């Protein structure tokens, strides 16, 4: 196992280098840079070109892509991910502030999704081909089809319209103010979790249906075990393997892709930071964000692979 872990982690390095290089080149090929935005609305009158040149020189983006890459690689090797073009702060400082927000949102969404999918998906499987099963199928399709921005907007707008209430729009951490934190996070997590639950419910249902047809399940029934025991202790455990694969994939999406939900609920997470970095051509921030997110995805996938072995001893990793 240890050798396996070391091998997998060594593979992180080339993957991360490739990801970094790809993003580095791609964002510089896209037209425009942060100076174009900084100059927007400037007073001109003969000063624009000189100011723009000075700004580009200060930021180091007047050099060729190859020169910039060489300089950045040297910094990376020293562990320096650079400073944001926007505010001059170390990019890690902003990531350090925002990553926990996204992680909390992702964790809550997963808990909500997994919790509801396990219950509802199991019910659908156990009551296969009944009205309950069909209702759950329809609801899960609706849940995964309805876009997050629609649900989220309704959650924000309707209570404000009818009851004069809205979730808070400024973030407080769980430690600073748990009540305000959850008032903001739970609606967002529910919005995201609902979509995820729709996806997971279908996987739980189909995977459990497959497992319930196995001999050992028939043995469990024959032994006289109660339905709850058969389901939770034997069925779900084995049905969980494909489900955990989906969870692993969704986590990657949640970490980098909850942009719309973050925007609707005004959560200053990694999604909005990354999109802002792209829109504003904040190269160091974008590159650092992508590196960190890529690293997390790699770690999550490693855990998923290890979890297979935990769930089913017949699957051994390493």
């Amino acid at each position, binding site marked *: 196992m240890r050798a396996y872990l070391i091998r997998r982690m060594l593979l992180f390095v080339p993957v991360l280098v490739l990801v970094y290089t790809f993003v580095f080149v791609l964002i510089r090929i896209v037209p425009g840079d942060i100076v174009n935005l900084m100059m927007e609305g*400037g007073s001109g009158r003969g000063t624009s070109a000189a100011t723009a040149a000075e700004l580009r020189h200060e930021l180091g983006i007047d050099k060729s892509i190859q020169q910039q890459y060489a300089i950045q690689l040297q910094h990376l090797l020293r562990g320096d991910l650079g400073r944001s073009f926007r505010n001059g702060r170390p990019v890690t400082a902003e990531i350090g502030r925002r990553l926990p927000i996204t992680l909390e949102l992702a964790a809550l969404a997963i808990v909500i999704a997994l919790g509801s999918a396990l219950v509802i998906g199991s019910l659908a499987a156990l009551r296969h081909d009944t009205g309950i099963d069909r209702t759950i199928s329809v609801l899960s399709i609706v849940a995964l089809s309805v876009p997050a921005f629609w649900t989220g907007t309704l959650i924000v707008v309707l209570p*404000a319209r009818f009851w004069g209430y809205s979730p808070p729009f400024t973030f407080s951490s769980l430690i600073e103010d748990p009540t305000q934190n959850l008032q903001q996070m739970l609606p967002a997590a529910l919005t995201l979790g609902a979509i995820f639950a729709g996806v997971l419910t279908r996987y739980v249902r189909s995977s459990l249906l497959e497992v319930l047809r196995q001999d050992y399940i028939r043995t469990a029934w024959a032994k006289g075990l109660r339905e709850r025991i058969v389901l939770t202790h034997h069925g779900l455990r084995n049905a969980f393997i494909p489900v955990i694969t989906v969870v692993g994939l969704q986590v990657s999406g949640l970490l980098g892709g909850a942009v719309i939900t973050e925007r609707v609920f005004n959560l200053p997470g990694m999604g909005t930071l990354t999109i802002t970095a792209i829109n504003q051509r904040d190269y160091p921030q974008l590159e650092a964000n992508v590196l960190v997110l890529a690293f997390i995805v790699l770690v999550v996938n490693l855990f998923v692979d290890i979890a297979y072995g935990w769930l089913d001893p017949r699957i051994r990793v390493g």
Partner: protein
Amino acid sequence: MTEGTSVYWETFARRTLSRRRALTGAALATAGAAVAVACGPRSKGGGGQTARSSGAAGSDAAAAAIIGKEWNTSPGTPKYGGSISHAPTAPPLANLDPILSASAMVHQVASNAYSKLMRVSRKNDDLNTQVLYPDLATSWETASPTTWTFHLRPGVKFQNVPPTNGRPLTAEDIKYSILRSGTDKTSQLRGGFVNLDTIEIPDPQTLTLKLKRFDSLLFNNLAGHYAWVVPHELVEGPGLKNNMVGSGPFIFQNWEQDSQLTFKKNPDYYLKGIPFVDELKILQIGSQDDRIAALRSDRVLSQDQMFPSVYNSVKGDSHLQSQKYIVVSPRVLFMNYKEPLFQDDRVRKAISLAIDPNAIIKIENEGEGLWRGVISNQIAGWSLSQDELKSKDYFLRQDVTEAKQLMAAAGHADGFQSELLYNTSYPDFYKNNAQYLQQALAAINIKVNLVGQEQTAFRKNQDDHNYKGFIYGLDGEGFSEAYLLDYRSDGPKNGSGISMKSLDDQIDQVLTTPDETERKAKAKDLTRQILKQVLWKVEFDDDLQYVISQSWGKNWMAPSPQVYNTTGLAFTWIDKS
């Protein structure tokens, strides 16, 4: 039972308890969280606390006297205490250094921590008439068009936090700040000081600006957002990108990027008894739906630039009040100056005649707006009247028949192909307007292909004039005659790339005319010339929109869109009685 099955059951028995515990724990945690949310108090950031009665600095009468002289007044006795949250409608904030950005947000934030020579407000009953108040300068005079003298307020100090630690603010600090804005190589505001020659300090309470020639915009710039007074210790030390230390009414506490900025009352502010509230929060809420929800749920003080439909949806909320005002709509259709087709003024006039400004107003502001010539209607007295703009003297009206005749006379009866570049990062009505323009031009056989680009790429192409045919973008905003700068060859928003020496000279003639009445007349004459020739740009309209604010926010004056200040927050108090 087979051996394999036996192993299965043994292994299962060892593992069951830990997974059951984990699932149970998770379920309990989620349930607990749900209960906490349901039972938790509804926390408000929008000044939800009723102001405590005085015990704080200044008496009510003294405060009332101050705001009578230094800012707008409104009925009611000032009350002290509480916290206000304000969520401006403004682009994201990149950093806090006011010279690095000309966009609204940084200056709206800066206006709470910094001071400048004058303050700009608007009339209570007419949001389109500007009013100047003293700030660091208590009075000013012009000995000649090129010599301006400002008499400074005595006893002003920087805030009592590092690195200034409450030291006196001097004329040297004001000079330093103006020169920083006007000469720093990275300053976005440098162009506003091109006509400034020297700054003299004849005595500690007097500042004299000597100009190379009269510049009407310079005075407006000094009152606007071009010369926040910053301490050199901060510039030379940690810098201004992430810090603000000034002499303003609020002391900067913290900035969480893309989330909020927090300020506390400056107890040593030179206007005793100001500000009224103890705490100020500037929230960055990106979505308009969220901002409106925050307004309705009492979380923020005010929202400006609200569409008529938003006003209609909230006007029934008893805790909200509203005012209507003119907001410049800076969206224009540029024609690329370099393209030979557009050198023929008949083609340009035909293009303008093909478009109906009322259609644009309907799409982008639900039908409530005014026609605009060159200068916005926002400031009274500078723009041409609506009747004149709609007359046959100009080409803003829609007349497809006349347009086709002009195209035929220019040898383009069959039209031509072209492109229209537009910004996909702006709200939807941009795209809708672009589609309307495409249809309107098709009526005179100009077939345009719509090309959408995101913000930064669009800005680059607009600035470099790197587009084919047309661009539907933004021109500048500012005080009255500043709109003429967009026609100047080095103008900040010269999206067409116009480069005409004669036009540059005429614009300079307007801007260097000291007498305001004469200047207005010249500006209008130049406007007429530009409109008669359709100089590579079609400007459509100004919008009639709403400022909606909480009724408990007393004496609040929403910022003028072309003056990037929220100075009014210092003079606002909370009264929920």
